[in-house]
């Protein structure tokens, strides 16, 4: 009921409905009772009138004097509600009659049931009453009176008027009372609703509802609302503080990181420029010495010069590799779908000078398209394939296999050779910087390549591991993210 209206309007309407219905019920009950008693009185009055007429016309009936009876009946003229009156003989013949001017005769009276003294019939606009006239226990005639109900209707109308007036007055009163109660009931609720709206709109948790003086549910509601706002305000403040602190720390760390990065870059720039020059000089002057004064030096001195030059060149490679690794570490990976088979083909082609004159059985299986930085992945394959070429060079029939398989939805790419292999116990050490499992005189190298490879794979969110056996080859596995479901480039 009253859905969609404001609370104060609903309260007013409810008040008015309740008072109106209570008033209407009371009036209806009162009216019904009054009508009943009024009708009973009317019936009794007519009955008494009929008895009087009966008593006064007894003699006239006995002497068959209709004129006397008519004069008795004409007395009824004084009663304005009597429409007509008549006296009938016991056998139903009209003896005497009185009709108010303008009233139409309505025929004989209704029959009186045996054993009864009178019969009453109530119509909409008139009441008919027939009564036996009795003398010494014997019926001598019948009195028939018709009277209108104007009295009753008048009473009904005045009742309706009074009820209408009272109803209007009481509705007005109910409306007034509701309006007054709005101050105490609906107004605080409406204010609270407005405040809640404002709080949620302005995100201002510092606002408070004014406390009502009274006790009760509304006061509790306002208090709870204020307490809730207080809690939200506290939490908001705590959250804001935590966020500021976090931002400050992030800023601090970012600044530290930027400084460290800058330092690292400066360091690597300096290494790139300044550390290589002395090596060039060592190698250069050793070479000149060996060329110009070679004939005067004994073989041991020549050999030492060779060692000096080898050392300088190795140091040069170390510096290059380290700088390379540092550069890759700083570089941001730009991910895009890359066909690894194309990368492998390019790398194998570029490695040609490293395996010139050798027979290598290249087994390139199906390779996936993966989400990666193609430049960095090329470095991965260049290192792994160059290693495979290097460590298989003592084999008559070198075999290098590149392929992949799926594991838990991730492509695992592998590079396998049948070369020198390694001891599985030390497999983890392969990926450390400057970690080598072979002597430099057996297989040259700086121990930076696989560390760089691991760094790239980890940058891609992948994993790298190795399996090997001494003199029975090595296999390197790494995972990369697939670029799409089942996108495999078939060989």
């Amino acid at each position: 009921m009253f859905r969609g209206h404001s609370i104060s309007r609903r309260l007013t309407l409810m008040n008015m409905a309740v008072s109106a219905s209570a008033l209407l019920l009371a009036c209806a009950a009162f009216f019904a009772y009054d009508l009943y008693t009024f009708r009973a009185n009317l019936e009794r009055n007519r009955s008494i009138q009929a008895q009087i007429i009966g008593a006064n016309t007894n003699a006239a009936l006995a002497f068959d004097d209709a004129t006397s009876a008519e004069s008795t009946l004409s007395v009824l003229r004084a009663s304005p509600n009597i429409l007509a009156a008549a006296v009938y003989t016991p056998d139903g013949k009209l003896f005497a009659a009185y009709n108010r001017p303008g009233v139409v005769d309505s025929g004989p009276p209704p029959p009186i049931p045996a054993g009864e003294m009178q019969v009453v019939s109530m119509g909409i606009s008139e009441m008919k009453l027939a009564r036996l006239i009795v003398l010494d226990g014997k019926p001598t005639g019948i009195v028939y009176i018709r009277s209108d109900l104007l009295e009753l209707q008048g009473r009904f109308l005045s009742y309706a008027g009074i009820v209408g007036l009272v109803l209007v007055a009481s509705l007005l009163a109910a409306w007034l009372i509701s309006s007054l109660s709005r101050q105490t009931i609906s107004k605080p609720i409406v204010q609270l609703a407005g405040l809640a709206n404002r709080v949620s709109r302005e995100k201002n948790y510092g606002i408070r509802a004014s406390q009502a003086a009274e006790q009760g549910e509304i006061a509790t509601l306002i208090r709870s609302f204020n307490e809730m706002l207080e809690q939200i305000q506290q939490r908001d403040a705590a959250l804001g503080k935590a966020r500021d602190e976090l931002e400050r720390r992030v800023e601090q760390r970012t600044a530290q990181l930027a400084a460290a990065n800058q330092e690292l870059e400066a360091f690597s720039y300096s290494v790139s420029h300044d550390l290589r020059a002395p090596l060039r000089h060592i190698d250069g002057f050793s070479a000149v010495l060996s060329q110009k004064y070679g004939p005067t030096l004994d073989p041991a001195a020549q050999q030492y010069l060779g060692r000096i030059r080898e050392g300088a060149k190795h140091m040069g490679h170390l510096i290059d590799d380290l700088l390379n690794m540092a550069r890759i570490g700083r570089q941001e990976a730009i991910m895009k779908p890359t066909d690894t088979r194309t990368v492998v083909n390019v790398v194998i082609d570029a490695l040609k000078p490293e395996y010139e004159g050798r027979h290598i059985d290249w087994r390139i299986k199906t390779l996936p398209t993966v989400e990666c930085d193609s430049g960095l992945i090329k470095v991965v394959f260049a290192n792994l394939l160059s290693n495979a070429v290097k460590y298989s060079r003592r084999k008559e029939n070198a075999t290098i296999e590149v392929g992949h398989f799926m594991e838990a939805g991730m492509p695992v790419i592998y590079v396998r050779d049948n070369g020198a292999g390694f001891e599985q116990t030390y497999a983890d050490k392969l990926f450390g910087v400057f970690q080598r499992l072979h002597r430099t005189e057996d297989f040259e190298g700086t121990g930076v390549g696989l560390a760089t490879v691991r760094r790239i794979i980890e940058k891609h969110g992948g994993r790298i591991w190795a399996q090997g056996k001494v003199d029975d080859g090595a296999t390197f596995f790494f995972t990369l993210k697939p670029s799409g479901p089942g996108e495999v480039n078939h060989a």
Partner: protein
Amino acid sequence: MLNEAIEILYVEDDPADIELTLLSFQEAGLTNSLHIARDGVEALDFLLCRGPHAARDFHAPRLVLLDLKLPKVSGLEVLQAIRSDPRTKTIPVVVLTSSREQRDLIDSYKLGVNSYIQKPVDFEQFNQTIRQMGLYWLVVNKVPES
């Protein structure tokens, strides 16, 4: 000496590098006349006939060999100055340096370098590089008449 047509301006601060490079030039049979500047200021003074070279008649060398890490005025600044002066704008400049930092490469090319060579540690490779470089820029390559 003052008005002799200089064919190569070699800008390098490290005496050891100068000695080795000159040995390589000899080895490669490059006998072109060469002037050495030991820092950026000297290089620009010579090129633009300023300071101690104010009396020199301007004559553009056929090639400038430029190190990047130089005292006073850096190699990149020298390159920028060469490219901003209408007289030296078209001289081929080859950067000859230890570094192959991306930053140096990008900056050099942005400033209009003609070639960028990283000096190899291996002396034989160094000789070969100098020979190829000299042959290309002094024999094969053509420059507009000054």
